[in-house]
């Protein structure tokens, strides 16, 4: 079981528990002052991208500096995102992302800040609308106009599901994001290395937990077309050239399910990680 399921699952997978999307809309100030307003532009929207670059710089300065930078980054993530051990996200397959859309609201489509920072894609460009903000915090998005230059586009649950399916077809990995203790505030859809969260995990070993599933190939059904291999962003899928079939390294599999949704012969299925003894503690 992943440690968030232990803490916040209430007997289910933690991100399928509606309690982990609930939040109050208002907080009274300690001393109510009539007419008091919040400042605009309190946070650096690209803070985590800067963090990742700082870690790369530290790596060049040596292992001790890198160790320090790593600890700082983990603490920073926990402090600002309410996570534990620097794990503020988790990979989810399409079917679970669709279920997440049913148990959270509002659902606000927004531009991806990672793709803006790493690839320079315009926020107002429809191709960059790959993030989904969840929860009542999205109602206050105008507090950070520089983060949301592309605005927020409110979607229905069904529109969100269709949007998720479209992004899945394009080959984007779905993952959740925590924005406070016991609060899931976003579904991220991105790819490596544009995605800061995936980069943090694959290059530095923290930030993003593996998903609750692992992929398995049915060799009787696989025809060796190789489509799944092209979609895997974690290096878990390779072609077995002798058999001419897809082969999955389950230790490397993140359970994103991109291979499963693309397989034309339904030869790949997702199994629960906790039911495979050798993988149940591999997050």
């Amino acid at each position, binding site marked *: 079981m992943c440690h968030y399921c232990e803490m916040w699952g209430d007997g289910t997978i933690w991100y399928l528990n*509606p*309690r982990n*999307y*609930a*939040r*109050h*809309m*208002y*907080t*009274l*100030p*300690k001393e*109510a*002052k*009539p*007419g*008091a*307003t*919040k400042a*605009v532009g309190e946070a650096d929207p690209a803070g985590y991208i800067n963090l990742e670059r700082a870690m790369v710089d530290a790596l060049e300065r040596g292992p001790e500096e890198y160790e320090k930078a790593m600890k700082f980054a983990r603490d920073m993530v926990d402090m600002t995102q309410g996570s534990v051990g620097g794990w503020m996200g988790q990979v989810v397959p399409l079917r679970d992302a669709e279920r997440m859309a*049913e*148990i*959270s*609201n*509002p659902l*606000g489509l927004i531009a991806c800040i990672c793709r803006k920072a790493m*690839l320079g*894609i*315009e926020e*107002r*460009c*429809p*191709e960059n609308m790959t993030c989904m903000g969840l929860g*009542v915090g999205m*109602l*206050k*998005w*105008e*507090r950070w*106009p520089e983060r949301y*230059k592309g605005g927020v586009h*409110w*979607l*229905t*649950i069904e*529109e969100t599901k269709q949007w998720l399916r479209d992004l899945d077809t394009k080959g984007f990995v779905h993952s959740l994001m925590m924005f406070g203790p016991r609060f899931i505030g976003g579904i991220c859809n991105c790819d490596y290395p544009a995605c800061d969260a995936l980069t943090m995990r694959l290059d530095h070993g923290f930030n993003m937990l593996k998903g609750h599933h692992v992929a398995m190939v049915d060799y009787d059904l696989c025809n060796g077309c190789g489509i799944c291999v092209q979609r895997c962003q974690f290096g878990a899928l390779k072609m077995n050239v002798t058999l001419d079939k897809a082969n999955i390294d389950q230790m490397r599999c993140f359970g994103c399910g991109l291979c499963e949704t693309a397989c034309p012969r339904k030869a790949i299925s997702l199994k629960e990680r906790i039911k495979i003894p050798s993988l149940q503690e591999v997050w």
Partner: protein
Amino acid sequence: MSTRSEEEAKKTPYELYIAPRPFSFELDSEMLVLLRKDCDPPLIVEKFAAEISGKKQDDVDTIAKKVFGKYGEDWMRRTLKLGEEYPDRTYEILKEAVDKTGEMKFPLVLQRFIEIAYLGTQQFRILPIVENWAKRLVYRVKDCYIYKLEVEKCGQEVAGSLPCRYACLAACKTALDGLGLDAAVEMEATMVKDGACQFALNRI
């Protein structure tokens, strides 16, 4: 990943950001003062204490239902009125989202008014929301001011029977009626047994 739409987007400058009015995302403090003035918990608890004075224990529940039930209705009606008269930017954006999607009136608009009702009359700064999704709105009331006043004015035995629950249940029902929503109101936990009252509004 250069696309035509991206190039077109780059040709036009970013629009100058103009802060909307009202810009406060938090509740209007004047509204909260007015709500507190009109629905002050000490007044209703004193009224209840006076009404049950000298009455048999069997009659207490009937009186509670009448006194607190009426209070709950009036409290939420006043909340619905003031909440519309004193909008904030959070509410304006919520209304935009509801208009755009046709969804989210349940639970989010309902949640806003329930939060106003409690934050305007209680002593806590946050109303804990346990669930808020398309089928359920659940909230918890801990450190309840009315319950504390009941213990002081009516004694532990009367307070332990939670006569004030009728106020919360009636307020939820009034909010649903006022917003034109259908949901079943249920009390899932109580101050006495669980340390906090918990109310669930389940979408029918």
